[in-house]
């Protein structure tokens, strides 16, 4: 065991992982922060509940129906959904940044947010008679169709189609956004404001079904992404190096893009477009500590979860009873924080 790394040996040393100590400490700190935030989030809200009452409700010994509703139906699923959505959006961004080798890549780059937005805004404004319960499915369908279209347009026999993906992504996304904007401008004012609220990305409506859906997605997709982490590491070296190391580069790229699309599309279908998390979380993870890809992904996921959890809690509690959508808060919190970190890093480099 070196001073900077810790070696985890499993199954009689058939699996041995060399883990950086500092990164593990950071992961532990963020995990503690998430647990602290969960406890805080369950205890704070417009409905006055004592810590004891929340504890009794969680134990199942609280008999007050209102307290049970507030904890079990409002605060708990919302808190868990915020973490899960944050994890998914952050990892989607990390995968896209890796595959495109572009630090500005995030789920909106490949049309996921715009596809979901177009489908939902059209359902609200053009077909207001459509059942509102179908909105998440429409969002999912919109995201997947648009993401698949962009991938199909950028498909060619060469492995290096990242630039094409970015360009087609920007073009198709801009086209879809203009249609969405036209509908918002010319649609019925009430329906347009309803659509705008969905576009702001909000976790207030999540329930236990959403938590189950998000949990299943995380349990399936995140391990797949972690399995690809070694191959992602070789992609960092550049395509020529990766090919010379025997990496099936085309397969890896499409697998990563597909995972990124699935993660962001499912998250967006539940809470609406939640901007900035996919962009900022991987950068924050990198700024906090340099590590291998797997650790970076874990750190990115935790930062994403924490960021959305804090954003949702702040939006729910700071100005209650006014509810500020988490999507707005992630941008308000995240952008200055990212700028601060980037500037402080630049100062370090200049020294």
């Amino acid at each position, binding site marked *: 065991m070196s001073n900077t790394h810790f070696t985890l040996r499993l199954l009689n040393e058939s699996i041995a992982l060399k883990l950086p100590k500092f990164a593990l400490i950071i992961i532990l700190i963020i995990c503690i922060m998430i647990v602290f935030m969960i406890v805080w989030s369950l205890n704070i809200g417009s*409905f006055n509940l004592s810590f004891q009452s929340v504890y009794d409700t969680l134990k199942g010994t609280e008999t007050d129906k*209102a307290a049970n509703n*507030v904890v079990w139906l*409002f605060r708990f699923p919302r808190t868990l959904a915020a973490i899960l959505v944050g994890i998914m959006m952050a990892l989607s961004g990390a995968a896209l940044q890796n595959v495109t080798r572009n630090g500005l890549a995030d789920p909106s780059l490949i049309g996921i947010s715009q596809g979901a937005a177009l489908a939902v805004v059209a359902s609200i404004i053009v077909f207001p008679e459509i059942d509102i319960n179908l909105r998440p499915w429409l969002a999912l369908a919109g995201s997947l169709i648009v993401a698949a279209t962009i991938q199909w347009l950028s498909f060619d026999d060469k492995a290096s189609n990242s630039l094409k993906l970015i360009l087609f992504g920007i073009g198709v996304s801009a086209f879809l956004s203009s249609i969405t904007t036209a509908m918002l401008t010319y649609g019925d004012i009430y329906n347009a404001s*309803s659509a705008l609220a969905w576009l702001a990305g909000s976790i207030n*409506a999540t329930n236990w079904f959403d938590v189950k859906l998000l949990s299943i997605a995380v349990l399936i997709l995140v391990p797949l992404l972690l399995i690809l982490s070694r191959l992602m590491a070789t992609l960092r070296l550049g395509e020529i190096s990766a090919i010379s190391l025997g990496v099936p580069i085309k397969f890896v790229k499409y697998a990563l893009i597909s995972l990124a699309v699935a993660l962001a599309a499912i998250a967006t279908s539940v809470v609406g477009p939640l901007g900035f998390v996919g962009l900022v979380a991987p950068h924050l993870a990198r700024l906090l500590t340099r590590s291998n890809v797997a650790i970076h992904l874990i750190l990115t996921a935790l930062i994403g979860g924490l960021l959305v959890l804090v954003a949702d809690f702040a939006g729910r509690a700071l100005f*209650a*009873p*006014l*509810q500020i959508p988490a999507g707005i808060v992630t941008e308000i919190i995240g952008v200055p924080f990212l700028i601060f970190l980037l500037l402080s890093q630049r100062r370090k480099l200049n020294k």
Partner: protein
Amino acid sequence: MNISILKATFAACAIVATMFAPAQAADTISFTDDLGRKVEIPTKPTAIVSMHDSVLTIPLIELGVIPAGSHGRETKQGVPFIRSGKGLTGYDFDNSSIKFVGNYPADVEKVAAVKPDLIITTPWQKAPIDQLQAIAPTIVIDYNKHSDQEIFELLAKITGTTERFNVLLGRYEQQIKRIKRIIDTENITVNVIQPNKGQILVWNTYGNIGKVLRDAGFTFPQITNDIPMDDIGRFSAEKLQDLDADYVFATYRTDQLQSPKDTVEGFEQVVPGFCEYLTACKEGRMLVIPREEASSNSFLALSISAYTVLTHISGHPYNK
């Protein structure tokens, strides 16, 4: 204790219970809302939370039902208010027991804190129905499926205030009769137009003022009649003259502290010197009125609109 006494006590309890059971069942009625949900609601709700201030809260107050909580908005200084509340009903959050439960989305925890026995919401409100339903019976009224008057009637039915609704409706009908008696409405053209970001918006039909004008039998320009019912037309400056009429009405937002000057500036943005292109404006027959009364779902606002139409059109008998 003697067993026969125990039996008699149980029998008495059973009789009392069966007497009460139908009474309790009758305390709720089944209501099918606009989402097709069948909801058991109290026949006489005592603590209603309204999830839309101008669409639901104002009519409820006019029907004599003061909600326990209401959706509202906030001024720039962060002070919550019921849109048109004070101006039309006298009620607002700062002078009544009505609790502010948030805006958009409303705060479900705040709603729960009010302990309502009925929640009335609209598809516009983003507070999720399943969460509201967990707090109290929740019904959804869709303003896309009903006229303002139909919403009023529904609310009256829900709150058991149909008698009050009929009184208010009778008063309005009387006011329309008076306009028809005094003004030759069929032979007078009218229009309601509004500047918006360099365009002119025209509804078919716009709020209370539009309803009063339609109900009284005034004639609208063809371009307005061609707009599908309950829809909105957007026109460029080139169409301004087609929108002209004997009497033209426009509105300004009092809740945003606007004045008629703001509307005039809006028209100037559409076309500089707009008044030259509208005979109604040029000849002093264009009226800019507060939107609060012109568009709110309120019988008082309807009365004010009816009075405005009557006095504005018939109030200059000395003019040739």
